């Protein structure tokens, strides 16, 4: 399986993401600069964390109108897994691939520590390696991770079962403790916490590794035939 990590000016978790796939998962992965990117040959798209374009205007706003996002939208419509973490999540919200927006953290602080996430759905292509209700330790690192949407959108998220991760102890004011959501089709996941920073016990937690393994497992079931 071949993963693309999209690199924007200001991305800073691209190498963590690369490491998680290459060394944690053991699959093929490229760092792909956003300009003149050709994503045709990739089986999964990873939008890493950081501060694309220095967070100018709004977090993720300028990256969301870059040409590479048009390609990602087409891939997403075709069912390719797209994972956006932190700034990657913000970019997915700004493009409209996922509903809602990010506000400044309720207490205005940039926060960087482990949080306990509750796996709300273990039936997505990103979370099949977890149990529903399982609690995992994943670090957060953000100043604008306060997930906001209006009441109608929140109802829709619940009705369509799109809330994948919640915070056990909401650190940032996110509506309904939301830490991660998927699109209706289930192949685009955005989350503020960093699973790519939690792929080996040596680093404090390996709770994020199952996400990457789940994506690989899904891909194998879809495309690899065994005789």
């Amino acid at each position, binding site marked *: 399986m071949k993963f693309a990590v999209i690199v924007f000016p200001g991305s800073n978790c691209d190498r963590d993401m690369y490491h998680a796939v290459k060394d944690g998962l053991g699959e093929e992965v490229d760092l792909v600069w956003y300009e003149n990117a050709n994503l045709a040959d990739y089986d999964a798209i990873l939008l890493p964390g950081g501060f694309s374009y220095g967070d100018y*205007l*709004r977090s993720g706003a300028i990256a969301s109108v870059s040409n590479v996002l048009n390609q990602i939208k087409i891939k997403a419509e075709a069912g390719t897994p797209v994972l956006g973490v932190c700034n990657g999540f913000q970019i997915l*919200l700004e493009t409209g691939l996922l509903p809602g927006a990010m*506000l*400044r*953290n*309720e207490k*205005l602080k940039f926060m960087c520590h482990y949080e306990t996430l509750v796996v709300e759905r273990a039936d997505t292509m990103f979370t099949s390696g977890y149990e529903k209700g399982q609690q995992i330790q994943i670090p957060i690192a953000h100043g604008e991770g306060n997930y906001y949407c209006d009441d109608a959108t929140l109802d829709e998220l619940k009705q369509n079962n799109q809330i994948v991760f919640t915070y056990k102890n909401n650190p940032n*004011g996110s509506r309904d403790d939301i830490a991660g959501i998927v699109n209706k089709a289930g192949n685009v996941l955005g989350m503020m916490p960093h699973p790519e920073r939690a792929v080996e016990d040596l680093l404090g937690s390996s709770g994020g590794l199952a996400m990457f393994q789940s994506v690989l497992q899904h891909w194998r079931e879809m495309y690899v035939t065994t005789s």
Partner: protein
Amino acid sequence: MKKVKIFITLKEGVLDPQGKAVQEALQANGFPDVADTRVGKYIEITLPNEADVALEVQRMCDKLLANPVMEEYSYTVEEGIRS
């Protein structure tokens, strides 16, 4: 040329943590009467005279400058700006 002055603020009802912090600082510094504070953005754009400002600005705001999920915008136009 025309100068368009665009004001972007969080929608009413959307919590503005930055505005709240500024308000508390104002209240603590001799302005106890401040009842509400909202922090927004101000953007100036210069367009040619023939531009359809209403259409262009609306498209720019919807596509990039404002996020309609949480923000709203308004603008004023100054005509006859020398380029």
